[in-house]
């Protein structure tokens, strides 16, 4: 081996080796295990091939299928609501901080971003108290303006939205930073030229800011989706998937089936389904964006 080859391999081996062993091999194992009956308490060699049975079961009409399809729907709804709130808010906050020329904008940026540093477990604990129907300050404040009291985490109608809101509270600062990064890439001269032509506020936003932020927004949406799929702590700790399964989301459900109940094959089939759903969604979003670009 030449000296160059040797040093190239030496530079790449530690990281790519770790990624191969702890990410790529497990992906392959997940796919294989999805077609087997296997207890997660026993070695991989005990897995027996059963074809598509796991997939039939998780999409079937039995209780396994009902729970899984519920979790899939909850996660889809949760992700949609998160993205629908995070993107507009982060654009608003980003423009307020970056474009409005307000004193103290950097302080706001710091406060917003600081929430992203807070461990999710602490967020979950604090919000479980903030949401408390009788002792929590949120219902108290809403009461002052004549709203409520709302049941928040204790009703199947509002529990999932409540988890979405705490997630938005934690993450919106991070996405605001991404949007600011996108805004700094828009040349000031474009705005000035448009203003010469008489364009004002909403027109500047609609014809310059938004179109030129498109790639940033697309990237943000994908990251927000991947983050939303990972929601775990508030569900595991506070709601346990309830009430009546309304907050039973994929990460929580797959872990409960595959690790806690040790139904490794069944859990793996759920993981594969989740992965496929994500790949299809992300590919479709990018394909749509590209087609619009060509117009």
């Amino acid at each position, binding site marked *: 081996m030449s000296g160059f080859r040797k040093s190239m391999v030496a530079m*790449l081996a530690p990281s790519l080796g770790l990624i191969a062993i702890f990410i790529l091999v497990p992906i392959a194992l997940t796919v294989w295990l999805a077609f087997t009956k296997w207890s*997660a308490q026993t070695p991989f060699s005990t897995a027996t091939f059963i074809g598509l049975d796991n997939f039939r079961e998780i999409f079937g009409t039995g209780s396994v299928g009902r729970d899984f399809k519920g979790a899939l729907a909850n996660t889809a709804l949760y992700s949609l609501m998160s993205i629908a709130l995070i993107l507009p808010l982060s654009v608003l906050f980003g423009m307020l901080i970056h474009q409005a*020329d307000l004193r103290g904008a950097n302080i706001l940026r710091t406060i917003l971003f*600081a929430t992203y540093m807070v461990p999710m477990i602490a967020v979950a604990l604090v919000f479980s*108290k903030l949401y408390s129907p009788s002792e929590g300050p949120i219902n108290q404040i809403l009461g002052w303006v004549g709203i409520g009291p709302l049941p928040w985490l204790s009703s199947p109608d509002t529990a999932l939205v409540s988890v979405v809101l705490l997630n938005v509270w934690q993450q919106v600062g991070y996405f605001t*930073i991404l949007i600011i990064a996108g805004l700094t890439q828009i040349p000031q001269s474009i705005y000035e030229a448009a203003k010469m032509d008489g364009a004002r506020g909403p027109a500047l936003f609609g014809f310059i800011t938004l179109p030129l932020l498109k790639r940033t927004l697309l990237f943000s949406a994908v990251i927000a989706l991947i983050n939303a799929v990972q929601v775990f702590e508030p569900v595991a700790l506070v709601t346990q998937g309830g009430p009546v399964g309304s907050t039973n989301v994929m990460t929580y459900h797959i872990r409960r089936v595959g690790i806690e109940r040790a139904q490794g094959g069944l859990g793996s089939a759920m993981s594969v389904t989740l992965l496929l759903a994500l790949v299809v969604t992300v590919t479709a979003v990018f394909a749509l964006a590209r087609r619009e670009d060509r117009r």
Partner: protein
Amino acid sequence: MSLPVTTPAPGAASPAWRGILYLLMIAIAVVSAFPLVWMVLSSLKTPAEAMQTPPVWIPGTPSLDAYQKVSELISVGRSFANSALIAGITTAGILVTSLMAGYAFAKYRFRYREVLFAITIATMFLPPIVTLIPLYRLVGSIGLNASLAGVIVPNLANAFGIFLMRQFIAGVPDELVEAARLDGASEFRIVFTIVAPAVAPALAALALFAFVYHWNSYLWPLTVLQGNSSQYPIVISLSRLLSYNRSAVNTGLVMAGATLAVLPPLILFVFLQRFFVRTITASGMTGQ
């Protein structure tokens, strides 16, 4: 960081409009800070105050009793040490592996480079739950389950770090690397004594990101430690306080524990945030 700003066209920003924007800004800051302020205030309440309806906002007689109680229920020192070990070693590992791989991807030309890089980047978008079940078994089969090593080893390299380092090392002039080679420096020497200082701000940002992420991470340690409570990081020890929290008497207790867990990442953030913002802006990771 002072940001360039549009010179407002005459009449574009009336004082009234600016007043509204300032109010909006203050409202956002208040909503954003409120949960954390409430957390700290509640940790200082007496049990009676903490369960009052409607809630009292400012503790009448602030006391640190809740913190005392937390340290009796969970081994705070031990949990902090575990968290520091997990986050510290993982971060150090990520910095080293990312520098090396980032250097190779940025400065070496070899076959399959783009393919390898693309595969690496793809793993950045993988939700951990997808590999959790076999990973749990895999780590167990190499004898690392229920130990800190099991928490740390699978995370010593990550795609985000490699991506970030490649982006910034690509901006380091080739002449700098060539000159060091002519002086007879080994490739490792070049990476750690010439390239690393040149990308120091990005390294600082990566360090902050990795440390906070692994200090806060919950799903993987919970899964791999399997109830071995002597190895619990603070975020998992904290979750055990909730069983005491079922009776509302101990709200203050949970808030005290949460306050303790939040402090290290927030303190680190205050010192390193400027690197972080600058790095995200300059990395092109938002797709420009």
